[in-house]
């Protein structure tokens, strides 16, 4: 038996936790660069605000209904997400963090009569402990748990918790679910299934497994089996070790100067290196990519990315920035306006794995390690910051490429200066 716990309008709910004045008021959260709406509270959705809507289209609605607008604050959402997952883990033995606001839980040890009370307890716990409302769907398979969760959100009479174990109820729910809404199907596959006269999830559940496998693949066959209550997808609670660390951003406005892009990429490389060191890792390779932005629409240029291997693996920001800047200069094509850049660190492993050579010529690696430690200590102390000059010296210089986040809320839970206030 599985549960899917999904936070209601997660980003908007996070913005409300430390803003009691926003209770009941419509809230929307904007994408990186404040371009369009990526999340809205139930009140905002009721006003007709849709995910993906450009901000300027929603302007009138926002003004008329006093909608609270926020830039995305991933620092806050990340911390509250961690708390949601940890709170769930106090009630069940295994949690699979499926996304920032969703988790699958293993309920195989529960007796059937315990499922409904547990669902309510999970909802209660996260709401009380973290302040974020969630809905819970419980079913014998992950695919059905996902559907049960959707129904729990859609139908208020469920009270936010739906245990879908009765086959008659399951059938009724499947019959009113369009096939494209099934987890793992989506719009395009849904279209092809519609052509085969499979319109609802129930049609798909009754379809011939072998035929589905032949026409599509074993993945869709599994969906059919899961819809019939046969569990094919186990809980994946073990976190895979980090494969890469990415730092990428859209620029605040299109950038046509090499110097500014160089600066941006130096900054991204330094930030990626910082979070890598915080996890005790070192990188064996670094990649850089650039995207152009003519008229606001990204257009691909080739080649748009490059990779350099770092040997031996390193923790040194200076080495990474040097490689990153070299790659930017090689990729750069004059006459284009760039809209986005990214840095990716790969071949990650525990720092210190890089083998010492007994008779190495220089001590630069050791020196680098020590220097980085000093830099990180200073930067974490909160007393001031040190950085490589290549990242740019001041705010006015950086604002050319820095992300637009005009409506950013405080990092209430992770910065001393941003703590919420009580009178």
């Amino acid at each position, binding site marked *: 038996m599985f549960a899917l716990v999904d936070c209601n309008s997660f980003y908007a709910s996070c913005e409300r936790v430390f803003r009691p004045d926003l209770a009941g008021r419509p809230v929307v959260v904007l994408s990186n660069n404040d371009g369009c709406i990526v999340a809205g509270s139930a009140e905002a959705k009721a006003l007709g605000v849709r995910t993906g809507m450009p901000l300027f289209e929603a302007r009138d609605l926002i003004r008329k209904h006093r909608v609270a607008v926020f830039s995305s604050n991933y620092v806050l959402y990340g911390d509250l997400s961690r708390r949601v997952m940890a709170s769930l883990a106090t009630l069940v033995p295994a949690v699979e963090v499926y996304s920032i606001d969703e988790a699958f839980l293993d309920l195989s040890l529960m007796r059937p009569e315990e499922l409904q009370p547990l669902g309510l307890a999970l909802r209660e716990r996260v709401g009380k*402990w973290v302040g974020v409302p969630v809905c819970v769907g419980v079913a014998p398979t992950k695919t059905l748990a996902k559907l049960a969760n959707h129904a729990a959100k859609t139908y208020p009479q469920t009270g936010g918790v739906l245990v879908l174990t009765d086959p008659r109820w399951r059938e009724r729910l499947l019959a009113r679910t369009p096939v494209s809404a099934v987890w793992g199907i989506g719009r395009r596959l849904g279209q092809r299934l519609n052509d085969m006269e499979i319109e609802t999830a129930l049609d798909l559940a009754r379809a011939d497994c072998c035929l589905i496998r032949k026409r599509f693949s074993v993945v869709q066959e599994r969906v059919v089996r899961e819809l019939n209550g046969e569990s094919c997808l186990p809980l994946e609670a073990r976190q895979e070790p980090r494969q890469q660390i990415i730092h990428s951003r859209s620029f605040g406005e299109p950038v046509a100067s090499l110097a500014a892009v160089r600066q941006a990429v130096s900054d991204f490389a330094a930030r990626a290196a910082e979070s890598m060191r915080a996890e005790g890792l070192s990188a064996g390779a670094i990649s850089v990519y650039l995207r152009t932005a003519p008229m606001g629409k990204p257009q691909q240029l080739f080649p748009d990315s490059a990779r350099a291997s770092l040997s031996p693996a390193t923790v040194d920001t200076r080495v990474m920035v040097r490689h990153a800047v070299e790659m930017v200069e090689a990729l750069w094509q004059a006459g284009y306006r760039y809209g986005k850049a990214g840095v990716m660190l790969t071949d990650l492993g525990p720092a210190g794995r890089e083998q010492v050579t007994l008779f190495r010529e220089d001590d630069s690696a050791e020196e680098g390690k020590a220097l980085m430690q000093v830099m990180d200590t200073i930067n974490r102390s909160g007393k001031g910051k040190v950085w490589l000059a290549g990242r740019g010296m001041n705010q006015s210089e950086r604002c050319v490429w820095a992300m637009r986040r005009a409506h950013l809320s405080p990092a209430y839970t992770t910065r001393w200066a941003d703590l919420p*206030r*009580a*009178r």
Partner: protein
Amino acid sequence: MIALPFFTECVAAGFPSPAQGYMEAPLDLNQLCIGQQEATFLLRVEGDSMLDAGIFPDDILVVDRSLEPSHGDVVVASLNGEFTVKELRLRPQPMLMPRNPRYAAISLSDQEWELFGVVTFSLHAHRSVARSRR
């Protein structure tokens, strides 16, 4: 290429520390102040309504949302769209009591309010020591 012998053992010089084998982890303030980590939030105090409870402006409150509030607890509640820190009285009627004679008690029976969490510690700096600046 010359092969050199390489010994991985350490060579002990001097007398071993008499404390060896008696080591314990250093004391951790988080362990003392934070019960349910995922439900604990820190807030900054504004104003002087709780002076007599030893809570001063700029102090940091450790608030545990997992606890059930009881009569006499110091709590953070949201009232009129703001967080407020007060003493919770459940008898004879639910109210929020300031701990400063210059402030009036707030009755909870006739207005909308919500509990944010129970205050377990308040941290008051007697002399600022770096890191946790404002």
